[in-house]
């Protein structure tokens, strides 16, 4: 289907099996490591979903955190006001993020380059301001505490970090696997042709606007679901998760990781999150180092962490 052959599935699957085996024992390392890994995984899916837009379709977005936040708030409000089970609410949150994706995506179809970037930035800021100002719904800048956890299944209580970890792990591996298949599919190739040259794609019959909308729907859906999981994990959300800074953080994972590779952004999420944790002890110099690293990577390794890893692997093989 969609031009995905069995060979491709088998080839990709083995990496996910290895990842699964490596990640299963993580909770043995204690609560702190488990906690950090959960956040890394949620960010990894968000950054990978952004890569569908930024890396594959060539549509720069500076407002991706808004969709993460829409997912988080939707699921939270559904659970708290109408008692909707988070298992369903998280999914609806993903769909709601896609609806917001349409609202941003359709009118900005014709925009290119910096125009699209700024348009998405503005959209993100508007969502952030809405979350702050619609306080009858969102409780404003103070945020929403006391979000219900994922409902227990039999004896499993998802308030425990370990139990939630395995939910997040399953979600992450499945999401990234699906996105990975997408990039190898016909849709992936069509999206890449749009990135490479919109006019040329049009001239060979690609319905460019339609596929741009698909890219928006897919990317925002996965961001929304990650947001929902995030909300029911931390059980507290505030408009802070939708700021421009947060969007930039996600975008830097995608780009520093190596955009257009899908796995790069996953690496980006891991490296940048770990960096944040490691640099914690340097406190005020933290962002100085962080900013410097972004500049150095972009200047000397524009293909990102993924590129660096490939470079090292090639050297090792030689």
């Amino acid at each position, binding site marked *: 289907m969609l031009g995905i*052959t069995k060979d491709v599935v088998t080839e990709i699957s083995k990496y996910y099996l290895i990842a699964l085996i490596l990640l299963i024992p993580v909770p043995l390392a204690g609560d702190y490591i488990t906690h950090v890994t959960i956040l890394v995984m949620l960010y990894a899916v968000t950054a990978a979903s952004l890569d569908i837009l930024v890396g594959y379709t060539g549509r720069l977005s500076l407002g991706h955190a808004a969709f993460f936040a829409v997912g988080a708030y939707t699921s939270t409000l559904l659970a708290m006001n109408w008692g909707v089970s988070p298992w369903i609410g998280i999914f609806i949150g993903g769909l709601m993020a896609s609806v917001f994706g349409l609202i941003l995506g359709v009118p900005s179809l014709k925009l290119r380059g910096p125009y699209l970037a700024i348009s998405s930035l503005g959209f993100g800021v508007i969502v952030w301001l809405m979350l702050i100002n619609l306080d009858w719904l969102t409780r404003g800048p103070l945020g929403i505490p006391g979000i219900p956890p994922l409902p227990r299944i039999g004896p499993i209580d998802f308030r425990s970090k370990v139990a939630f970890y395995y939910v997040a792990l399953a979600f992450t591996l499945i999401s990234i696997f699906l996105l990975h298949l997408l990039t190898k599919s016909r849709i992936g190739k069509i999206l890449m042709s749009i990135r*490479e040259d919109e006019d040329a794609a049009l*001239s060979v019959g690609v319905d460019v606007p339609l596929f741009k909308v698909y890219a928006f729907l897919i990317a925002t859906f996965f961001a929304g679901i990650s947001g929902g999981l995030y909300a029911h994990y931390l059980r507290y959300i505030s408009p802070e998760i939708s700021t421009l800074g947060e969007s930039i953080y996600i975008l830097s994972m995608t780009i520093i990781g190596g955009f257009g590779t899908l796995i790069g952004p996953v690496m980006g999420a891991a490296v940048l999150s770990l960096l944040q944790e490691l640099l914690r002890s340097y406190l005020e110099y933290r962002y100085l180092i962080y900013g410097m690293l972004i500049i150095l990577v972009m200047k000397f390794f524009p293909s990102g962490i993924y590129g660096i890893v490939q470079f090292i692997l090639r050297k090792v093989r030689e």
Partner: protein
Amino acid sequence: MILEVEGVVKRFGGLVAVDDVSFSVKEGEIFGIIGPNGAGKTTLFNVITGFYKPDSGRVRFQGKDITGMRPNKLAKLGLTRTWQIVKPFLGMSVLDNVLVSIYATKGVISGISEKAAVEKAEEILEFAGLLHRKDILAEALPHGERKRLEIARALATEPKLLMLDEPAGGLTPTEMDEVMEVVRRVRESGVAVVIIEHNMRVIMNVCERIMVLNFGRKIAEGSPEEISRNEEVIKAYLGERFHVRS
């Protein structure tokens, strides 16, 4: 008639780029459009292929009015163009470049099996003499091969009319012959071809009929023989000191 263009006008601000141009192309012929720089050839091309909307006039393809129709729709109907400055999907493999056309016209979700799509793409690459290059990135191809990839990618949409914008532009004589050989074989397979070309040798050798544009207007139409003797055409070209030699 496969293509009929009637009184097409295209203005940019005060400038009339294409001024009341009419012509038609028969099934299976190679039709050339020539003219000095800025004569409006590429603009006319963009109007026919749906990249610009004409200010007035109509375009019909196989008897159907296609004026202002979107380029991707036209490609699906069987009217496909190439670009003067080639636009290969540089970051994709040569095979994927051609596959995109097949998916886009045959259907992304269904319509053609993956095996059939790849076979077809390879057949077209073979035809364009690029099969041995199928797995490398398009950005690694030299200019002459990029031009042929451009044609291959257009052919993969199964056009009934192929519109080539300067297929020989910027090529060495050897590369030019290779491209022209492909064009001739395209015609043999029954596809009509419209060529814009600067290079007189190419156009005189390959076209059955030629239309000449100058300052957006059609100044002559006829066989290569007639065109080369036409006073007005000679004047238009001499005025610009056009390279009549190859």
